[in-house]
């Protein structure tokens, strides 16, 4: 049989790979996606792994970029099945002693947010609302920054530039240029006096990959965290719906998608990537190969050190995964949604999209995060979602499906037997805590549960260490430094080989920017006609 030949091959049908492939095909390149798993979507997956009919998002939970994601508009994903809900109450923290929760509402309901924070502090409420309003105005700028190779927003790539911007936009609120050098925790502690709000913000920072103690990332609190905060959508049917719509767009463009085929090797001839070998079969790519796999896998395992310069081998080996953004996903099948003690102050906490459970204030929240980072199993606590409250398709009638995120140590910090033990016992420990916060979370209310741990994520989606971002978010691995300066523009030193996954700028998250920007780089190199509307600034 003749070797199957395409113009472009994309490794990995995660949402970035799907995005890239759709644009490539539309630009006239015959494109093949090769996927190791039997399902498309990578981290954008939704399954029923506990009981039939109970859906759980195994990785990505809340969607914040849908309003700006180019592919949604360009390929009409809403006609291909993508639908969303945006719950009114978005992010909340609840307490075991029944004191008032803090509930942050949607950006269009900031009065409700104000009321909630003001139960503790009017000053904090005013400041939060003001910061949020200004951060929302940065949306276009944020989109330009995300959906272009690093450096598109003037000065955003340097601490000095960000400092200037902070002073310009937030200076009258007491935010000064030196905040850039702070850690997110320092920023939060200086801005807000309410411990309950601080605790909520700490955790959200970390979920977005910004370690609370990492100095030099303070700017991101304003430019990114405050924008994304409580600006979240739920994909009807689960996060996987996005991957489905993207896949359907690919099919309709004519992309071929080969599942169940692990790429074993990227074929390099005369310094140029010319194809891949997947499950023993060779596929040729005449114009480009793009990898959605993580950096080390792409360069060291698939290309191989033989085809790389010593510097690139060093850089790839030095690239770090975790400890930030290493998560465990507990999944619960419930009769009733949790009813919190704190709801007596504000019933919205019972209908809050994302609810933090198991914390009392900033100190134990910080300890929790630090424990996980240092390889210690923290005392169980979680961010939780009960998506069936808004989307009845996610659980059988009169039942609920809840999913959460635990912060956990890197996969390699525990032995296989220890992870086995975590899977067996940790959810039960968390449930005991959950019950203190929501008395109806009794054993009788939980029909079944299961925990999906970082070591399993590593195996399932090749997310090393269970790192959702596929590479630590630290100043030396962010922005123009992602994954390392020489590789920051999606191109590699192997001609014709591109990076299109979260190891590339801007990193992990469901924004499809890595794939979209990689397309721009490939289109530029190959002189492809651009299907991107000319009147859009990204």
């Amino acid at each position, binding site marked *: 049989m003749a070797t199957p030949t395409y113009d472009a091959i994309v490794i990995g049908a995660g949402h970035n790979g799907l995005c890239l492939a759709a644009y490539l095909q539309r630009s006239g390149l015959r494109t093949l996606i090769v996927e190791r798993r039997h399902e498309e979507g990578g981290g954008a997956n939704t399954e029923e792994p506990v009981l*039939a009919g109970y859906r759980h998002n195994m990785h990505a939970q809340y969607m914040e970029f849908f309003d700006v994601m180019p592919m949604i508009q360009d390929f009409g994903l809403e006609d291909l099945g993508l639908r969303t809900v945006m719950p009114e109450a978005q992010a909340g923290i609840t307490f075991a002693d029944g004191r008032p929760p803090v509930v942050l509402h949607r950006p269009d309901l900031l009065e409700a947010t104000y009321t909630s924070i003001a139960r503790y502090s009017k000053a904090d409420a005013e400041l939060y609302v003001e910061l949020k309003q200004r951060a929302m105005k940065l949306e276009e700028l944020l989109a330009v920054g995300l959906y272009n190779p690093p450096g598109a927003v003037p000065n955003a790539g340097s601490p000095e530039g960000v400092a200037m911007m902070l002073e310009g936009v937030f200076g009258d609120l007491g935010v000064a240029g030196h905040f850039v050098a702070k850690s997110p925790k320092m920023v939060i502690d200086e801005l807000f006096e309410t411990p309950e709000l601080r605790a909520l913000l700490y955790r959200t920072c970390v979920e977005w990959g910004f370690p609370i103690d990492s100095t030099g990332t303070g700017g991101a609190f304003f430019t990114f965290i405050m924008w994304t905060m409580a600006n979240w959508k739920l994909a009807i*049917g689960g996060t996987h719906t996005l991957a489905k719509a993207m896949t359907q767009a690919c099919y309709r463009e004519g992309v071929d998608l080969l599942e169940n085929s692990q790429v074993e090797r990227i074929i390099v001839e005369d310094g140029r990537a010319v194809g891949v070998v997947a499950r023993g079969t060779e596929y040729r790519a005449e114009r480009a190969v793009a990898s959605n796999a993580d950096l080390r896998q792409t360069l060291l395992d698939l290309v191989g050190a033989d085809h790389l310069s010593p510097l690139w081998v060093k850089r790839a080996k030095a690239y770090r995964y975790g400890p930030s953004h290493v998560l465990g996903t507990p999944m619960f099948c419930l009769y009733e949604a949790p009813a919190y003690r704190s709801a007596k102050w504000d019933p919205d906490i019972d209908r809050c999209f994302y609810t933090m459970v198991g914390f009392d204030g900033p100190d134990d929240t910080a300890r929790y995060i630090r424990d996980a980072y240092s390889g210690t199993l923290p005392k169980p606590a979680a961010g939780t979602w009960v998506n069936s409250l808004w989307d009845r398709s996610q659980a059988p009638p009169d039942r609920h499906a809840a999913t959460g995120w635990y912060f956990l140590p890197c996969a390699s910090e525990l032995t296989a037997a220890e992870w086995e033990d975590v899977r067996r016992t940790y959810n039960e420990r968390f449930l005991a805590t959950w019950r203190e916060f929501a008395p109806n979370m009794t054993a009788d209310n939980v029909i079944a549960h299961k925990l999906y741990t970082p070591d*399993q994520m590593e195996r399932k989606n090749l997310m090393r260490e269970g790192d959702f971002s596929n590479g630590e978010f630290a100043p030396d691995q962010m922005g123009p430094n992602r994954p390392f300066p020489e590789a920051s523009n999606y191109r590699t030193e192997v001609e014709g080989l591109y990076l299109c996954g979260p190891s590339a700028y801007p990193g992990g998250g469901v924004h499809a920017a890595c794939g979209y920007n990689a397309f721009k780089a490939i289109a530029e190199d190959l002189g492809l006609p651009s299907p991107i509307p000319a009147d859009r600034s990204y």
Partner: protein
Amino acid sequence: MRERYDAIIIGAGHNGLTLGAYLARSGLDVVVLERRHEEGGGLCTEEITRPGFLHNLHANYHTFVDMAPPVADLDVRGHGVEYVRPEVQMASIFDDGTALTVHTDLDKTCESVARFSEEDAETFRRLYGEAHGFVDLLLGTLMYQPPLSVKELTKALATFGVEDKSEFLSVKLRRETINQFLDQHFTHPKVKAHLAFHGAVCSYTNDVPGLAIGFPLLVGKIDNWHLCLGGSHRLAHALWRDLAQHGGVMISDAEVERILVDGNGSTRRAVGVRLADGTEIEATQLVASTVSVEQTFLEFVDASVTGEDFAHKVKTEVKHKDWSLFSVHLAMNRLPEYEAAAFDPDVNRAWVVNLGYGSPEDLNADWADVRAGRLPDPRPNAAVNSLYDPTDAPEGCFTGLLRQFAPFALADGGEGAWDDLGRWYGHKCIEAWRSFAPNLTDDAFLEWSVFTPHDIATKLPNMVRGDWMMGEISLDNMLDERPLPELGQYRTPVNRLYMAGSTQHPHGFITFGPGYNALQVIAEDLGLERWWRKI
């Protein structure tokens, strides 16, 4: 979502996707609406034990590969489906340590049968030869055409004098059970047990009168069992891809609440659907339902449209299987090593293994329990897909599937009782397996999950009462009588509303038949050019 399409198909199982893809290739603007978050219906492969272990929660066996026209018409293989036909297709392992194996090599199968009875081996060879010969004719006559009536069929068989020309095919089979057929032609209980078991796995229960008529056809494809590499769900992807590449759309999480009907009396016509979230979608040409009769005519269409009589018929006359399947899905670190391998080493390579039914009477006894809502002492069948699929489990690991014939509702506690009993019964099934393969000690299983009859109905409510065939397999519910005489030709009391799922002739299983046959009727009504017709 768009407001208007030419054709709306309800349900993205393999029949819905198949019909959708043909219609899309015919130039219609098609949307396939799926209630679940995944397409495929019974083509459902999930990692319910551990990441990397692919478990087929429903369809595991593809027995109509290369017989069903859509496989070629829709270029299923070109869309990435890889089928494997395991060399050792099936085995029965008996309590006395002996075993019977069915191979893709007929001589080997006959050798195995001959170890029990040489006479039976010869009979089997003749039956297989005859059945295999007329498989083509029967498939063309019976499966991939809108159905004839039993009367028409009987008359034709008599006119052609088939009875005189065939050793095994006869008009009287329509009154007989598979047990009777086996007793007439075979002598050894174990040989009969295996053949009866094979029928049962295909939903042809051995003690039901009339089913003997279909039995020779089953034997004709006894060695055509295919495994879909990477899980059965890949076929769903392939069909979806064909649909989408030809301009159709599949929308998941689109639960239909209502079929919209205009006009009344004989002019009433399906014009669209309303989803559970209130969205209305118009269909300018047709609506086809591939879900259950009950959903379609008791939930989606108001009884005032079709008349109370018809609604009453749907409520009382639609027949469902009186048994369902209980499954245990296992993530394993070793393959079973059967003690019976000492008798026949090929059992260790058999894809599907019957564990312990030693005579048709053993099966009869279990049917009696199952029909009374009791749980039989498990004699599950074990399928180890990893024997033939290197991609369905992590390296050095294997998937396993135990399936046990079981009641949907238990006499004690109804179907809800499964939620408490599942794990316990799963244990018993594993113990039964271990009794034949002692190396399957507890540490052989990294994890296992059960999938009960109740789970089937929860996950796929179109499988009413866990009825995985979407309608009883019996003579009264066959051909144009399936699922009701009014619906037997894929048309319904509402113009331009069609039934195109497994409720229809031929039946459930991955046959592609209902979707393909509904297509013929729709093509006739809409005047579509039948490009797929190859003579």
